[in-house]
């Protein structure tokens, strides 16, 4: 087995080494850049690498640390999904329409990391405007899963997930509107956290579906997720939906274990369409939870079946409105026309890819006169029913468990011809977005093909400390250390 290098360690391990003076941020950053040099040509996780900036930031982080700065994110090299605006650094959203867009401001999540001394390795590839479950909807080509380069990394934050899995970043930011952090985390064998809606400011998260969009984290451990969340969370005057951060240290209770915790296994998440290897791995983890002293029982989310339908009306409806801003006037692509309307329509046809057009059309239709009540209106009512399902489930259980996605990584090209089949990848992750509750995906093992399986834990609104505690306990018990095949072949 190839030796683990600095770029393969967790941020917690690296933080300890930095504090002890054993390594510098410059050395960690060089290790990541070397790994990028070794594998990026095959993985294609990055759209805009920022190596020079990373070296400069690492040098500054080392100076700050010498001066006594002890922030857990200082000097740790990170990757940021390309739907998060970064001042002076090209931000494309994986779209031709923003191919040369350079934001004049930072999103709040990155602004906070940057102010704390974080190091930016680059902007990661993603499905166009975060619409997709395989990263194949990027206008700049697909990302390849480090576990098997012929398979997808999941999406939409596929580049962030693959970068963390391959050691091309220590941790990363992504966004999760219907599963876009958790599903790629599952397919790439890393930890993916979607916090409570509003816990992390959406300012500078280029909007897809505003009532569902969240900023989430990709890490190699649950403890790292707690640290990265703490660094980005909290009220922001620039986002009226942002929530006060009542907790400052998300890792404080993380060693509390699961003894006595009531854990509900979601019945609907083990039905047809779920691969046997996924079911077996998640079931085995549930048995571990019982052996660890958790009180495990079955729980039903009876309206889960309707969540996918509601999501594919609500998200496209909001998207059709949000994406109206790409009109060829203030930023992005322009294709000329005789008048403004023709210019806009030509610009949008040339600049958007097939999936984005599909969702704009779907949303425009669902919101149009005569159809609004039957589609968007009804979907909003289903959203109420989903929230009630969770309220009932959390009356009996502290944390819910299910697979993160029905399948492990699928082959590139396998589902591109069938939008509905692709949408089914998110069937277990979408309900948490509709209800605003936090959820996390951790690796539970490998399937028979040697691909990682993700297990999802879900907790009530703002119960991140409990969620992270349960996830950490299970993570320790599973002790998932297998590394992507790609890395085993290095040197």
């Amino acid at each position, binding site marked *: 087995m190839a030796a683990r290098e600095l770029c393969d360690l967790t941020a917690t391990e690296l933080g300890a080494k930095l504090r002890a003076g054993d390594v510098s941020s410059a050395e960690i950053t060089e290790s990541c850049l070397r790994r990028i040099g070794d594998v990026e040509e095959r993985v294609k996780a990055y759209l805009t690498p920022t190596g020079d900036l990373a070296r400069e930031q690492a040098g500054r982080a080392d100076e700050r640390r010498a001066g006594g700065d002890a922030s857990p994110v200082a000097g740790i090299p990170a990757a940021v999904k390309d739907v998060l605006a970064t001042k002076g650094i090209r931000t494309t959203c994986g779209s031709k329409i923003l191919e040369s867009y*350079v934001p*004049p*401001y930072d999103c709040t999540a990155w602004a906070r990391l940057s102010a704390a001394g974080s190091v930016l390795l680059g902007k990661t590839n993603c499905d166009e405007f975060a619409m997709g479950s395989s990263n194949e909807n990027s206008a700049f080509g697909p990302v390849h899963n480090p576990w098997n380069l012929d398979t997808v990394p999941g999406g939409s934050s596929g580049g962030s997930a693959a970068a963390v899995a391959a050691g091309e970043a220590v941790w990363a930011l992504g966004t999760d509107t219907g599963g876009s952090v958790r599903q790629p985390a599952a397919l790439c064998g890393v930890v993916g956290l979607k916090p409570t*809606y*509003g816990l992390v400011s959406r300012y500078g998260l280029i909007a897809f579906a505003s*009532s569902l969009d969240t900023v989430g984290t990709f890490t190699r451990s649950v403890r790292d997720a707690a640290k990265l969340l703490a660094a980005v969370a909290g009220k922001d*005057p620039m986002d*009226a*939906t942002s929530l006060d951060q009542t907790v400052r240290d998300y890792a404080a209770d993380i060693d509390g274990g699961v003894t006595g915790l009531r854990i509900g296994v979601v019945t609907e998440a083990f039905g047809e369409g779920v691969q046997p290897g996924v079911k077996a791995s998640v079931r085995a983890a549930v048995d571990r939870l019982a052996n660890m002293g958790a009180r495990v029982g079955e729980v039903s989310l009876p309206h889960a*079946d*309707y969540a*996918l*339908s509601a999501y*594919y*009306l609500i998200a496209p409806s909001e998207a*059709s409105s949000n994406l109206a801003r790409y009109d060829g*006037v*203030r930023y*992005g692509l*322009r294709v000329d*026309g*005789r*008048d*403004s*309307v*023709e*210019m*806009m*329509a*030509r610009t*949008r*046809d040339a600049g*958007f890819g*097939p999936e984005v*057009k*599909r969702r*704009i*059309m*779907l949303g*425009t*239709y*669902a919101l*149009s006169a005569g159809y609004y009540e*039957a*589609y968007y209106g*009804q*979907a*909003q*009512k*289903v*959203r*109420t*029913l989903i*929230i009630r399902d969770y309220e009932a489930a959390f009356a009996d259980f502290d944390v819910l468990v299910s697979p993160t996605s029905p399948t492990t990584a699928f082959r590139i090209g396998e589902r591109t011809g069938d*939008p*509905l089949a692709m*949408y089914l990848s998110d069937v277990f992750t979408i309900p948490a977005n*509709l*209800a605003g509750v936090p959820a996390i995906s951790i690796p539970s093992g490998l399937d028979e093909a040697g691909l990682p399986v993700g297990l999802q834990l879900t907790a009530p*609104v703002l119960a991140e400390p409990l969620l992270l505690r349960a996830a950490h306990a299970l993570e320790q018990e599973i002790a998932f250390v297998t590394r992507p095949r790609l890395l085993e072949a290095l040197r």
Partner: protein
Amino acid sequence: MPVEIDIDHVARLARLDLSDDEKDRLRAELAVILEHAAKVGEVAASDVPPTAYAIPRANVLRPDEPSPSLAREDALANAPEAEDQRFRVPPIVEVE
């Protein structure tokens, strides 16, 4: 039952200058997706209130204090076309 869509009308509303091929494909795809999505009508009864935001917030106010905003040159830096410190666009209204 597959849903019939006036694709030209929707494309016009969405300001998308779709090709005929795109229209044909979208007409077929949206019909299938909407048929599936119409399931929301099966369960959502009239006594269920709609939810727009899972964590509702109303009237979020802040003190009305002036603060610096984006500099004009920064705001125009990404514009496809600018003139006299303004965004330049093709004609909006026809001139006789």
